[in-house]
């Protein structure tokens, strides 16, 4: 029985090559790991090992040398004898041994390599550089990291490639490495206490980390599997985890607030048949947005089912809400007048609104309570629009007249500007002639008398133009 001391992969390779050449069986060798400091002092490339044997040793599959280089970095003390035993088997009739991953030795080697590879990967991921406040022109970055295995030299070239234009050092308990923008220099291990302990950027990084976390999907076990707790001490963001978890329920609630209800639109209340009668009945029960709660009733469109012209307003007002018919209040009177001037019979057209419920704010006035009209928001317009679309589909008009900006934006998109595009004939998905004009209520609200007259005239002109 021989005892062999090895510290590094190169030691092992030299010894193994010698033993193999003299036919020493694995059972006759005892491998003893030494101080195990740096593994690859003047490490030649793995292929050099194949050529260095002066032809006395049988050739070894390249895959094995690569595997051995990784396994050599594992902390498990049995690795040297396992490697030699495998080498022996490979060269004594089991050349394909490495393919047989169910073999105990191979399996164990693979597990060890997996451990080392994973550790290298984690080093690439979890090294956190901190910028030194040197005041010099060159930025200097230092990281402290604790790998499980002796992988510094396997991982360092990655950092050289990635951070080529930076001065950096990575310190680990076993070994350290520095990059001066040209080459890598290895040195002794360094305790964590000697590494810089802060970086101004960490605050921003933590802010990012906290915000990108989705509190509606807490999966702590999955996180810990990928980011083992033993690495947390060197990860600045890990200090946030407890708080984030604690705040998660409240934040998830806030998310619901911003999202709530959007799944629901009038589409959920659509009747099977799309005729106006069925639509009107169904719309009476619509609860797709909160407006139905305070309003008296749904005010659905009215008029000829075969109308050539459909007029679309914004939403019912106070009178309309009480009576249940569109355009019956003061604005309706004005509209009737304008229609008459334009030579259009009200009973020939179909009149409806983008939003079918009255939206208001109740206010105290000296003459008692009053319901003040409020503009519908786009949430309500969106929720209600399926009714309008169904009405248009049922009627198939040749002309659509949008009364006011809200109606026009619902049909043309929100960048439609009524002041600019009033009266222009446009094409929409619903018909070829679609125009927008003033809402009668807007005319009534206009303080400036001459302007009001002008708007009235324009309303009549616009209606006449599509007659």
């Amino acid at each position: 029985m021989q005892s062999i001391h090895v510290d590094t992969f190169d030691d092992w390779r030299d010894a193994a090559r010698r033993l193999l050449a003299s036919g020493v069986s694995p059972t006759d060798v005892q491998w003893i790991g030494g101080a195990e400091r740096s593994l690859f002092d003047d490490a030649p490339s793995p292929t050099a090992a194949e050529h260095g044997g002066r032809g006395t040793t049988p050739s070894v599959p390249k895959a094995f040398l690569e595997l051995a280089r990784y396994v050599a970095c594992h902390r498990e003390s049995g690795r040297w004898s396992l490697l030699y035993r495998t080498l022996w088997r490979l060269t004594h009739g089991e050349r394909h041994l490495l393919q047989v991953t169910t073999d105990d030795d191979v399996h164990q080697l693979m597990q060890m390599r997996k451990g080392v590879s994973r550790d290298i990967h984690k080093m690439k991921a979890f090294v956190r550089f901190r910028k030194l406040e040197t005041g010099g022109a060159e930025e200097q970055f230092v990281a402290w990291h604790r790998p499980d295995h002796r992988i510094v030299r396997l991982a360092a070239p990655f950092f050289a490639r990635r951070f080529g234009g930076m001065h950096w050092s990575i310190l680990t308990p076993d070994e350290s490495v520095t990059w001066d923008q040209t080459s890598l220099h290895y040195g002794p291990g360094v305790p964590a206490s000697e590494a810089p302990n802060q970086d101004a950027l960490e605050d921003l990084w933590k802010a990012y980390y906290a915000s990108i976390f989705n509190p509606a999907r807490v999966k702590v076990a999955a996180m810990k599997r990928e980011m083992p707790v033993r690495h947390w001490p060197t990860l600045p963001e890990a200090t946030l985890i407890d708080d984030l978890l604690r705040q998660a329920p409240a934040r998830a609630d806030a998310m619901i607030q911003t999202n709530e209800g959007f799944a629901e639109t009038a589409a959920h209340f659509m009747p099977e048949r799309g005729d106006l009668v069925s639509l009107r009945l169904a719309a009476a029960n619509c609860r797709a947005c909160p407006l139905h709660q305070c309003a008296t009733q749904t005010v659905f469109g009215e008029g000829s089912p075969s109308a050539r012209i459909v007029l679309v307003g914004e939403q019912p007002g106070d009178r309309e809400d009480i009576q249940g018919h569109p355009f019956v209040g003061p604005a309706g009177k004005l509209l009737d007048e304008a229609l008459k001037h334009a030579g259009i019979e009200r009973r020939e057209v179909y009149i409806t609104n983008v939003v079918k419920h009255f939206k208001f704010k109740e206010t105290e006035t000296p003459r008692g309570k009053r319901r003040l009209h409020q503009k519908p928001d786009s949430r309500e317009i969106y929720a209600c629009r399926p009714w309008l679309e169904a009405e248009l589909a049922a009627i198939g008009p040749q002309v659509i007249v949008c009364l006011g900006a809200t109606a026009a934006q619902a049909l043309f998109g929100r960048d439609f500007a009524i002041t600019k595009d009033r009266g222009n004939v446009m094409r929409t998905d619903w018909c070829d002639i679609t125009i927008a004009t003033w809402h009668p209520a807007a005319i009534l609200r206009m303080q400036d008398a001459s302007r009001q007259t002008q708007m009235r005239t324009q309303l009549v002109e616009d209606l006449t133009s599509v007659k």
Partner: protein
Amino acid sequence: MDVRDKLTVLADAAKYDASCASSGSKTTRPGSTIGSTEGMGICHSYTPDGRCVSLLKILLTNYCIYDCQYCVNRISSDTPRARFTVDEVVSLTMEFYKRNYIEGLFLSSGIIQTSDYTMEQLIAVAKKLRTEQRYGGYIHLKTIPNASQSLIEEAGLWADRLSVNIELPTEGDLYKLAPEKKKPQIEGAMAGIRNKIDETKQEQKAGFKPPRFTPAGQSTQMIVGATDTPDVEVLKTASQLYSLQNLRRVYYSAYSPIPHADARLPGQSPPLVREHRLYQADWLIRFYGFDASEIVAEADQNLSLDIDPKLAWSLANRHYFPVDVNKASREELLRVPGIGARNVKRILNIRRFQSLASGDMKKLRVAWNRAKFFVLTADHNPALLNLDKLDLRAKAKPKTKQLLLFDAASSALSGEV
């Protein structure tokens, strides 16, 4: 608003985006001094939602002129708003990257002013990173809907990956929830990128050195569950995108509509698990030779939530089994539940030298609890007797639901089954 506050708002707004991978570019841009891309991406951190942080994933702004109903940035949402300058994003990316916090940048944006204007801003960020900072790390830009083709092409010069969001599985869904977005336009943009990629490849083959164009290809994201479109349609759309547009990835993002107060727990099993099942099915389509329509076996055209799609397929196709691990072809082995592609490769290797018994299968760490009902091994495998029993589904089903959610968290990375 300072950068920190903006970061808080604009990262928060990006947290719904499912894309995370930073892989695909195998070589680093020549001439860069900071940053590399090496084929396999690195997850630099994990958040308590179990998802990885590999990219600085932010929006340039979350203001938006559109009103897509599934999106928190829609104009009608009352979410807090912010906007980064181009320089702020460039500097954040560089500073984070130099500290090894991230693998690169994933930048998208709400639409401000016009689509083209917004797209130009995204391009400005990427261009500045490449030319002024000599940054060689990963950049993924999400193209802006309706941006002009020339701008998308320019973006591809600076970015490693472009994504054009398909948004919703069908044209009808788009019409309902995002009327400003049109399927032909979206697919046109994808086709434009695909053509440019193909062109670049052809030039490379012919020996020219064309400028790099999205070396990591293109991907897309689909919101699932905002409408009642069934999984089979989702997967058909995905398969089409893979074959017609040559996409690298389709990301699925489960939408959790919360219409009633009693469903006030978002992210509960149904949407998350559905997302997970879609990733698994997607994987089967891309790597296992399955077809979208055969994977979805349920009458309602949806994937089963309680078992994975391969197991579901196997239960519905028992005549296909048992498969002999020592004789079956690669394609046949790939269809066995619990045996993944990597293990199929190992099995094929090993059996050239020796035959495999059930003990070997366990050593390979196949999911023996599922696989055992479907395979012949060199030794006696008593579990096979269950193959034509009625209660096989109950027997083969994973025991705990917990495990399922555990998997679901990481399934965007791979849906391997």
